[in-house]
Every structure is written in C-alpha cells, then in structure tokens.
C-alpha cells in the first residue's frame, strides 16, 4: 500500500494512508470538522447540493441513479407528501435514537428497544418511499414498456426501521421490487424518505446543513448496481477516481495522483491502466474501478448494491473478497444489498430480509438456519440450498406482491403456506426472539 500523505497543503488536511480511515490515521480532526465543512466556512462554494435531505451525488452518478432504475423509468420522486405525519412530534429535533417501538406499519423497531446511542452509525426510522408516476402520454408509454401501470404510485418502502451498527457487515436481501435498493438509497440520502427519517450518528439528516451533508456524502458511499452504467464513459480511470477528491477539494494534483494509484493497487488494478476509459476495461475490472471510486474519499460506511450480480462467478468471488478486504483493512461498515442469500450470508454478520417493502426478519448470521424462520425466509433459504437430493423441492407458489397495490395485512399472506385468518387483515408486528433476531409473523 502506498503512503499518500499530502505534502504541505495549508488549506486541505493531509490524506492518510489509503487503507486507514482518515480519523484513525490520526491526521484529521474528528468527523464533524472534516473537509466538506471547510468550504462554506471559508466562504467558498461547497459541492453541489441536492434537495433538502439529499446527498449531492457527483454529476455523472446522478445519471447512474437513473439508469440503474431504468426498470422504473418514468416515475419521478414527489416532494415528500405528508412528510412528518406519523413521526411523533416528541422525536423532532431530539438528538436521539428510537428507544421504543416505532409506528412503522405496525412494525416494532428491529434494532430493539433500549439500544445505546453510539451503537448505530446509520439508522432508518420508520422510513416510507412512494414513487409517483409522471403524467401524460410519455408516462403511458413508459407504463406500457415497463409492463405495468404505475399511476397509483409504487410503494417501494412502506415503513422500515433498521439500524446499521458501526463496523458491522449488514446484508440486505430481497427479491426484485422488494425495496432493498430503495432502502439502501434512503440510507445514503440519495432519496429523501417521504416519511420517517434517517439518523446519522444520532442526528436527523433532514436537519443537515450544507457542511454536514457534504461530510455525510464523503463518509457514506453508495456503490451502484451496474458498473457499466455508473461509470462515466468519457472519463478516464484517473478522472473517475480523482473526481471525488476534486469535488471535496482534497489534495493537489500530485497528491491525488498518489492516492489514486494507491487505490488502483488496493483493488488489484495496475496503475498503468489509469489513462484508460471504462469501455477498455472488462466487467470485473469496471466493478473494481467502482469500488476504488467508492473508497476514494475514505468513507466509513459503504453501501454496495448488488456488487457482484452482473459478474461471472469466478470474478464475483474476486470482488467479494476485495470488499471484505476493504472492510477489514479499513474498518469499514459494510452494507451489502443482494438478492442472493447464499452470498450475503457468507459475508454478513447480520442479515435483514425484505419483502413487499417491509422487513420480514433481521437475524444474526450465527443463528441463520438454526431458528424457526419467518415463512418467507424459509422459502428463500430453500431456494439458496441447492443440493443433489432435494433439487428444487421446497417451492413457493404465486408471485411477489404488486408494489402498486400491496396486499393488506402481512405482505406475504397470498403466498404463505401458513397463512391464517389474521394474516389477511393485520400486519404482524416485529418481535424479538431469540435475542438479536427480529421477525414479523403472527406465528413466530
């Protein structure tokens, strides 16, 4: 690993070794006073800011957001309708953490009551997100191509409480349309929630000023699902990796170069490839580049959306191992979003499983497969457990819920082999048991 401490720059703090978080390398002031906060203080314009609680993704990333939800194209976000409604006033402005059950769709907090404030670096508190349709003929046509009519709005996330512990590896699993990517984006402030809030180190992100938002965006990085479309085709690898440093005004050209070369080495790419454009890389190399870019600002939290699903197995394993190495080497907090329970259970200490915009189960890895699981998790588990004798035997009938028109009661009831009367009408609350495991089912 290359030392990339920056030579004598008065205005910008030196960068530490690429593999250490800035703070722990001991060369930087604590988070609150980090570079992002520097710009406004010194009267210079800060990085571009988005909407109220939005994270200003670099320009090319914004297009990436759009393209990676092509499936959902044609829907735009609405200004948070009824934001705040449903969040008890008593919580407003409190520095704190949810200490009691939250009202999110009748689900109790899977983080549990009585948690200690310092435990969670990120916390989604009763978040909701609905995507509204765009009007007019264009909307009609898009609805046609997308294969469904979204005019009622797609209820992607319907009331979720989930905390991310500092330093943990959390897996977020669900089928397509379950809302896992949306939740990941809410957590990284790429989407403002319609309702509920995101707490970063206990502080409500909705109240962030420009400086805090900018610091957040440096400390929490989101890695997009599709490496091909999240890289700007007109930027060389060097520009791609140094863009964040430039936006956050870190280092001079020489220092950035050293840093970028260190990043390339960290992700197993030859620094001699720095002048290449994305199309000159293979799929696996592009994903390495995306990882390097996400690490370029030395984040504390990395939220990786399907980091390897576009890749071949032999290459997927390379990327997964790099992620794990970055996690241990840098002390990262890692959130991996994936539809693949087998993969996630391999790399996560705790796993959250979503269905129909809600959490079904949150479970520590050690007891996965050892408890009486939520019925949906059972089926998911069976689908991940291929074996010679069982083949594909435990098969769930039916289709996942329509996010426009989610079923009432338990979202899983139309497919659940154990569904009974109450399930149709009453959403099951989140309950804890055994310790650390939370599940939402009337019969667990």
């Amino acid at each position, binding site marked *: 690993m290359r030392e990339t401490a920056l030579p004598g720059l008065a205005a910008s703090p030196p960068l530490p070794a690429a593999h250490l978080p800035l703070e722990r390398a001991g060369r930087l002031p604590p988070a609150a006073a980090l570079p992002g906060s520097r710009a406004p203080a010194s009267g210079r314009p800060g990085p571009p800011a988005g909407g109220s609680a939005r994270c200003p993704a670099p320009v090319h990333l914004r297009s990436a957001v759009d393209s990676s939800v092509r499936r959902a194209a044609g829907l735009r976000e609405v200004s948070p309708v009824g934001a705040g409604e449903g969040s008890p006033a008593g919580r407003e402005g409190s520095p704190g953490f949810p200490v009691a059950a939250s009202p999110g769709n009748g689900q109790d907090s899977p983080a549990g009551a009585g948690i200690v404030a310092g435990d969670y670096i990120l916390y989604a508190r009763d978040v909701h997100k609905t995507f509204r349709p765009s009007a007019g003929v264009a909307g009609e046509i898009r609805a046609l191509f997308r294969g469904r009519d979204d005019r009622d709005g797609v209820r992607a996330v319907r009331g979720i409480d989930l905390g991310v512990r500092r330093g943990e590896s959390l897996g977020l699993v669900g089928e397509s349309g379950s809302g896992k990517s949306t939740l990941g984006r809410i957590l990284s402030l790429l989407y403002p929630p319609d309702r509920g809030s995101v707490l970063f180190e206990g502080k409500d992100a909705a109240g962030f000023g420009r400086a805090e938002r900018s610091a957040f965006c440096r400390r929490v990085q989101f890695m997009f699902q599709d490496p091909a479309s999240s890289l700007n085709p007109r930027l060389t690898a060097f520009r791609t990796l140094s863009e964040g440093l430039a936006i956050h005004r870190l280092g001079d050209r020489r220092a950035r170069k050293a840093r970028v070369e260190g990043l390339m080495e960290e992700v197993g790419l030859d620094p001699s490839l720095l002048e290449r454009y994305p199309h000159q890389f293979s799929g696996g190399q592009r994903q390495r580049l995306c990882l390097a870019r996400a690490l370029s600002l030395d984040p504390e939290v990395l939220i990786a959306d399907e980091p390897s699903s576009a890749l071949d197995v032999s290459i997927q394993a390379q990327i997964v191992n790099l992620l794990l190495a970055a996690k241990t080497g840098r002390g990262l907090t890692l959130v991996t979003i994936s539809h693949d329970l*087998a993969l996630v259970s*391999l790399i996560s200490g705790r796993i959250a499983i979503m269905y129909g915009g809600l959490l079904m189960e949150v479970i520590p890895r050690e007891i996965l497969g050892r408890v009486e699981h939520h019925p949906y998790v059972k089926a998911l588990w069976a689908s991940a457990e291929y074996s*010679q004798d069982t083949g594909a035997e435990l*098969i769930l009938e039916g289709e996942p819920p329509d996010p426009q028109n989610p079923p009432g009661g338990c979202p899983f009831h139309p497919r659940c082999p154990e569904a009974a009367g109450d399930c149709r009408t009453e959403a099951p609350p989140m309950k804890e048991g055994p310790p650390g495991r939370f599940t939402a089912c009337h019969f667990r």
Partner: protein
Amino acid sequence: MTEPPNAPLPDTAPPLLEIRDLAIGFGDGDYLPVKGLDFRLAKGEVAGLVGESGSGKSLTAYGIMGLLPFGARYRRGEILFQGRDILKLPLAVRRALSGSSMGMIFQEPLTALNPVLTVGEQVAEIFRIRLGQHRREARESACALLSQVGLPNPRAAYASYPHRFSGGMRQRVVIAMALALDPDLVIADEPTTALDPTIALQIIRLLKDMTYQRGAGVLFITHNLRLLSGLAERIFVMYAGLILEETGGGGMAAPLHPYTRGLVAAHPPNPSENSGKSLVPIPGQAPGPRDRLPGCPFAPRCPERDEACSRSLPELLPAPGGGRVRCFRREDAGA
C-alpha cells in the same frame, strides 16, 4: 408421471443430438468464440452446459437452433440431430425441422414475445401455422397449453399482452411456445437468470415436469453450476469455446478439471454450510474470442499448470466415472 425415458440407448440408435468439432466464428477467421465442441445428448436426457459469459454458450445454442446472429458463420464441424447432419440440409428443410422438433427458451422472455400480439394469439399461431388448425381449434389448444404451464386464468391470459405479465409469467408463456409442438429437443438459455430465486425454482420445476412428460431432451445453459447439480444428469463445462470437462450430474461434488474445481470453489456454498468459509476466486480472466493460446486455454489462470500446458492443446479424453476431461494432468487429479 412417467419414468424419465433416459435408460441407456442401444448402441445402434443415434443419440438425439451429437455435436462434432463445431466451430462458429464472426467475420475474419480470427474471431472464433466457439472453437471446437464435441458432445452428445441422449433422447430424453437433461444435460447442462455451464460456462462463464463469453465462453460461447449462447452461440452454441443459436448454432444448434439455426438462429445464428448476423455475421456469425459455421466454420467447422457437424450437428447431427437424430442422426442427420442438419448443417447439410437445405435451409428450408432445416428451418422446418428446427421449428417443429426443437424448442428454445431465452433468458429474457420479452425478446421471444411479440409485444403487439396477445399472448394467446402468439401461442395459437403456432398451432395454426405449423399444424394447420382452425382458428377456434388453435385457440382451444393454446388455452389448454397455457393452463398446463400454470397460468392461473388461461382465458384471461390468452387475451393479454406480454407486457402485462411479470417476468415469471412471461417465462411460462415462452415455455408454452417452446413446447407447443412436442419437440424432441428443448434448449433453455439461462431461462431463470433474470428471475427471482423463488420464481426461478417454479420455472425450473415446470420445465422439468413438462419435458419429462414429453420425453424431450433438454440442454440447459447456465452460468450457475449450483443450479445444475439438482437438475442435470450430465454436465458439460465450457470455457473459451471448448468443453473442458464432461461429468454426470453428481460429478460436481468431485470435479476433475482444475477449472471446474476453481468454479466450484468460487460459488457461494449453501448457507447451511458456509459459516467460516470464504470464496476462492479464480485469478485473472478468461481469454477472449480473439486470443490464440497454443496450449490449454486455462493455463494462464491454472494453479496446476506446468510448461507442457502452454505448448499444445490437451485433448478431451475419457476419465474414470464415465466423464471426459481436457487436461494434461488429469491423472494427477485422481482421474
């Protein structure tokens, strides 16, 4: 359900499908994604063709179906279907043969469906054109088939357009179309890759049941080795346009070729067995279709290579257990 008709064939009967030294390329002679395939598929057998992207799986499938994409050409070899080399048949005969005796299922079902016709019309069309059925008769056949593939309300489905369906439902329709004429061979190219895991299982079960009932042979193409272990009776492992290993379905527990072993180690293990495990990636990346390696195509990434490996191409030779392996060191591998 009837027994799967895959008892060993008498030596005299030709296999359902036999590929001999098949090479498919584009444009100039250098671009050769399929470099020389050899394999057989017995009547009613379910075989898996596994390989990573770019290894030539789909091109092989299209080659067998006679649906080569624009610019692609057969360069060498034979495709014997029920004993006849279909590459030597006149185009029209060939089209008719593949239209009625082979069915194909695609990764993205939308590409196989016409967006401006209802699902039912598309299925009925097959019965009308190929079997000469009348409108009403074709309609009844189509509805019956749609209900067999598990569409809950076949009459409503008949009148719906494909875009109204979820991915899983569309794939059911494509399966219906592929099986409409009772083909002897069904080629399924990554039929579940675009689907969610619980839906993928439904589709696999459906495909399995439908083809068993009809006694059709299946070539199931995938990049997911784990998927095949519970499904295929025979597995062909493809790499850089060549078959590197052929084994029985259970052979994945103890693969002989270094590449297959690497592939198994790179797959996430079953969640029940994975605690404390890590993935073992294969270093480097696969050669492209233009790369000309004189020796074993896996040599640059192989942990077991020696000098001989890069000098000449190993042959695909029988290995104990009934499989075949293309590796100079298969003796060391316990073969």
